[in-house]
């Protein structure tokens, strides 16, 4: 999942980028509204965190600009004043949730997880697909209730496929959403991740959770257990 953090205070921005990065998110950052507006319109983000008090272009205008350009990724606003007028204006401009500064990083990750799941059409934090269970809050994958050891990039790849379950996702889309812009797109790293994921999640080769759609990409093929929707 690729996130955009728009915050003008360098210390808070650094903390956000570090904390979210260590939570297995790919994070890109911007310090002013003008640049943020451009980045949000040009690159495929899965979620944006926007401070309302930005230099050049205000946070509200950035959000309005993105929504006017047809961008639908979820947005969390950060507000320092915390009065309801600010919150309501932000939500009316197109944001989906708000946090008042100072906030706990745990609260931010919980909120953004909820928004990402909601965007993918799931309301509960733990998604079950037969024997395979994925806890999007703890960022752990279980197989027959046993935690599967995944590297950060393996988890990201798997989560992206699961949140887009049933859809065929092209390799380029996965790389765009999981890696920074300077990632070498020609490398076969993705194939390596998918092969390892298959080995770890389906050692007996009786489940086939990730199917390869020739020439198009990959698809997470298991269907969700009923109570996980």
């Amino acid at each position, binding site marked *: 999942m690729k996130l955009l953090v728009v915050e003008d205070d360098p210390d808070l921005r650094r903390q956000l980028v570090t904390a979210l990065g260590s939570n297995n998110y790919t994070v890109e950052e911007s310090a002013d509204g003008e640049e943020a507006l451009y980045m949000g319109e040009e690159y495929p983000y899965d979620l944006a965190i926007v401070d309302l008090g930005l230099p050049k272009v205000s946070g509200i205008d950035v959000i309005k600009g993105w929504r006017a350009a047809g961008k639908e990724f979820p947005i969390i606003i950060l507000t320092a004043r915390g*009065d309801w*007028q600010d919150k*309501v204006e932000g*939500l009316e401009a197109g944001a*989906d*949730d708000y946090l008042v500064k*100072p906030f706990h990083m745990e609260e931010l990750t919980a909120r953004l997880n909820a928004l990402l799941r909601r965007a993918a059409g799931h309301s509960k934090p733990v998604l079950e697909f037969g024997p395979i269970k994925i806890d999007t809050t703890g960022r752990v994958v279980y197989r027959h209730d046993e935690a599967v050891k995944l590297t950060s990039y393996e988890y990201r790849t798997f989560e992206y496929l699961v949140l887009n379950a049933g859809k065929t996702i092209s390799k380029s889309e996965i790389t765009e959403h999981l890696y920074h812009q300077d990632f070498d797109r020609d490398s076969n790293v993705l194939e390596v991740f998918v092969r390892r994921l298959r080995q770890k999640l389906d050692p007996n080769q009786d489940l086939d959770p990730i199917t390869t759609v020739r020439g198009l990409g990959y698809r997470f093929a298991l269907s969700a257990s009923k109570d996980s929707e």
Partner: protein
Amino acid sequence: MNVRSPLHSLQGRLLIASVLILPIVLLIAGLALSNAYNYSVENAVKDRLQLQVYLLLGAVELKEDHIIFPERLQEPRYEQVNSGLYAAIHDKNGKLLWRSLSSILLDDPKLSEVISLGGITTGEPLFEHKPDAGIFSFQLRIIWENKGEEHSFLFTVMESDELVTRDITAYEQQLSIWLGIIFLVALLAQTFILSWGLTPLRRLARDLKAIESGEADKLGGHYPDEVQPVTENLNELIESERKQRERYRNTLGDLAHSLKTPLAVMRGAELEEHELHTYQTLVAEQVERMDQIVQYQLTRAVKSHHKPLGKSVNVTPIINRMLSALGKVYRNKAVLTDVDLADDLLFHGDERDLMEVLGNIMENAFKYGNSRVKVSGTHINGELKLSICDDGPGVTPDMRQVILQRGERLDTSIQGQGIGLSVATDIISCYQGAIEVKDSPLDGTCFVIRFPD
């Protein structure tokens, strides 16, 4: 020096308007008076000349086909050369039959130019002023019957206009002088009236200056009825500004004071032997405490604290905005909202204050309610009554007072307790309103807020 245009002063504007308009009015009045005078003078001349014609008619006799004059005419000026009064009689062919002795030095061409021989209908007198010739003329054509024969004669009496013109010129000079005097007196009077009438405004400016420089703290004394409401409103504004300043000062004092406790705790902890984990917990607790203090004091300082003059806010759109915003944030809970608002609900106060109260209470309903929130509003007995109910776990009776307690003792309050409700309670009490917690018809909590009009 910065020279200000006279248009920036009321007095300047009114004086400029007078200086422009008064001459036009006086000019029109002067023209009217002068015309009326001319008319009456000419009428008098006409009457006089007509009389002269009738006198002539009475004096002459017709014998056979010619007329006979007496030795002496009654009017001596006819006998005196260039006396200014002239007379002539012509027959129907325009042949001069008689002219008065007074006219013998008048040029003949001039006389014939003046006298219109043709175009005069019998019995209809013609009165004319010929300024070029300097003459008034009165002419009458008559027909006399003598032994069955008709004889037509044209009687002409002329008078020099010299006297009349001099008279009129003198009149016009007098008129101009008097109108000029009226203009000056009117301007002076207006300047005086304006200066007298605007004195209260100048006094107001002086008094405001005194307040600005700190010599006075309100507008004192009596002002005229038209200005009094302004000064009363200004006094109210100054008073509310002063209170606001005081509140900022108190808030800053409170803020500094209450922040020092958690700071002291952290400074003390620096010197103690702590494990990293307990130190982190301590810092986190104190940061939380400081955050609540800052938030509470900021909200308290910013909110308006007084009823804005005559301003009122429509409640329904604000509730709808809050509901749609909260519905977005709590989308996962799929809260069912039930809104029952009377028409034209008005809140007499600041929109921001109302949003703060509603936001804090409605968010609690969304947060603690299971799946339903009901917002209702009515206006009864001169107060706005809003109730926000949820179907959550409810609040026990002994906790009801506690959660509404105003935040004065916030720096010692329980950890983790939000400040939203105390901010709401605080704002409501500023409007002399009331808030209470009741049992909800939905089996949860109901917050009932009342604002007097």
